[in-house]
């Protein structure tokens, strides 16, 4: 009797899990933003990794890996990196990209590519954090040294 009741009830209990995949569109989890853009001054534009066009940036807009930000002469913005408190001020006539990062447990790391212009960077806790900046000519690493193994 119990077995019969169990068999009868079983399909109802599994209803939500057994939905056909076609009825539930597969949505990839949103990536975590690497930084936010704040303190915008003048003309600041952003180009998403998946977009072809530049668009006007707004205050507190999240930045993800491979996004790009550019400023016109006299403009500026602050990139506040999530998680580690690093702040990068982007000067005028600059072009930067949020590079891919490889965070490690307890060792937050940020990679930023500067293609043109000037940045003023600050790593709040260099003993435990690091900021890696890549330019066409060099790689600058501040904070804790990361050794790849």
């Amino acid at each position: 009797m119990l077995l019969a009741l169990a068999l009868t009830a079983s399909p109802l209990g599994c209803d939500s899990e057994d939905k056909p995949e076609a009825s539930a569109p597969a949505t990839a989890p949103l990536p975590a933003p690497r930084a936010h853009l704040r303190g915008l001054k003048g003309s600041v534009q952003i180009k998403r990794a998946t977009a072809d066009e530049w668009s006007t940036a707004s205050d507190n807009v999240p930045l993800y890996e491979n996004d790009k930000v550019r400023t016109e002469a006299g403009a500026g913005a602050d990139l506040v990196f999530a998680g580690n408190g690093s702040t990068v001020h982007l000067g005028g006539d600059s072009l930067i990209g949020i590079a891919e990062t490889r965070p490690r447990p307890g060792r937050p790391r940020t990679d930023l590519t500067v293609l043109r212009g000037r940045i003023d960077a600050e790593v709040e806790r260099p003993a435990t954090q690091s900021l890696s900046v890549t330019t066409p000519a060099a790689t600058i690493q501040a904070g804790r040294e990361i050794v790849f193994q």
Partner: protein
Amino acid sequence: MRTALLLVAWLGLTPAQDSTVVGANESLREVATRVLGDAAAAAELRALNNLSSDTVAEGTRLKLPGQERVLALKALETARTLLAQAKDAPGLPEATARLKAAEEHFRAARYPQASEAANAAGAQVAAPGAPQASAFTVQVHPDAGTTTVTVTRGPPVRVEAEGVTRPVGPGETVSVEKGHPPTVPPSPPAIPRPEQPAEGALLKRRADAQGKLGPVKLVWAAVAGAERYEVEVLRDAQPTPVLAQASTAPELKLPLLPAGRYRWTVRAVGGAGRSERSAPRLFELAPDKLKLEVQKGQWQ
């Protein structure tokens, strides 16, 4: 033997150091002042003796804190001093919070916890590796990506190019050309030091037909790396120079000038750039009166 017995008896009669008896009309704050030297320690006595108020009956024996209070007090004082000195330390907010927790433990007579929290607060701002924010600037020039890195404060940053890593400390700058290892850019020449005329010198010169005076020679100390010197001479407080001239030697002979007060500056120019201008040096140019001598004779 008798002496030993007396000593034992005295020790037995001596009131224990870990307690005290409340006197007549004595408040808990007064007891705290008497035994601990601090009226605010009444809160500790209240916590230590599980009292619900500061009112205690005369003759009540109160438990007193022991050596652990002294240790906690020292830890608190040390932490307060360290935090006061670490005004801009990045870990200061956390250390302050820990110190606050330590003080709460102390007031509640939880002395071991107070010591632990105070020591942690002090260590946070006093450790050799105490976190100090790292600040630096990266400038990518519009040419082929030449990069200049300047560190303003904090621990050195590492600049790597072409397999060469160069640490850059506060106040230092390195430049990296694409395809080359990082190099320290040559610094511009030093600021030349004016030597002659002396500061504020009054120079008397004969006037020419137009009333202009001269000659005046400016001399300054040569500096290493200078290929030439740029001299500016300005009159009084006028902002525009009356003369701007270059010289390859550390001196310059001025053309004839009208009488008046002048100031001059010099700076060195080399392959690595130009120095700042020297501090202005003043001189005054005045006509020298001609002494007429008429010989004795028919023309006298």
